[in-house]
């Protein structure tokens, strides 16, 4: 295991509804919907920005603040 303890990590850090609410209440969080843009445009979580998974790259993520926690979400857990 590396010094940061992440070397053997099997999953990204998962959060549930209550934890998301806490992060949003704290304010300083980047919320990112990774679904196709049309689905974002129709309906999204307030404050979220759209970066579809297919366009997730150096250019698209340049709008994200690296000093803030990033929360990504899609439609469901399937």
């Amino acid at each position, binding site marked *: 295991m590396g010094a940061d303890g992440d070397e053997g990590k099997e*999953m990204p850090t998962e959060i549930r509804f209550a934890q*998301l609410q806490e992060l949003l209440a704290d304010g300083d969080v980047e919320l990112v919907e990774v679904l196709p843009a049309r689905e974002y445009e129709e*309906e999204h979580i307030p404050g979220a920005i759209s970066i579809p*998974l297919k366009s*997730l790259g150096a250019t698209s993520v340049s709008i994200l603040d*690296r000093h803030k926690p990033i929360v990504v*979400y*899609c*439609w469901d857990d399937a």
Partner: protein
Amino acid sequence: MSPRAAWQLEAMGFVDVYDYVDGKVDWMAHGSRTEGPGPHYALLGEVADRSAVLTCRLGDRVGDVKDELESASHDYCVVLNNRDIVLGRLREKDVKGEPDEPVERVMEPGPTTVRPTESAKGLLERMRKRNVPAVIVTTKRGRLLGVATRRALERLVSE
């Protein structure tokens, strides 16, 4: 999809990345506000009402449940364990036994339940077809969220 996005962001050097694994459908099922012109995808969870269901616990006396069923406008009582997991249902017809018996002796085990992320419109159609007045809503792990009535779903879908 979101786990891959989280992995990719971490690979790109972001260090504080979280995956809201249950996603937008979970947010909406909690009845939380959304932004956007829609169409809004109405979900069952938006009308699941915890206060609209009578509950009892394993070990409770049948006689006590009978009294509650008679004094309230409920057709049944949902039987929970101490973690709010739905284990059974006690209908009025089931409570004719010995009043000191524990509810688990006479309950109907494993009643049908539905998830809050289910489409309100699709479920309403099925309830109409089968003349079901209400459904028990639980998390996927079986924790009771409430009951959704056909009337509440009809209101939601017509909004």
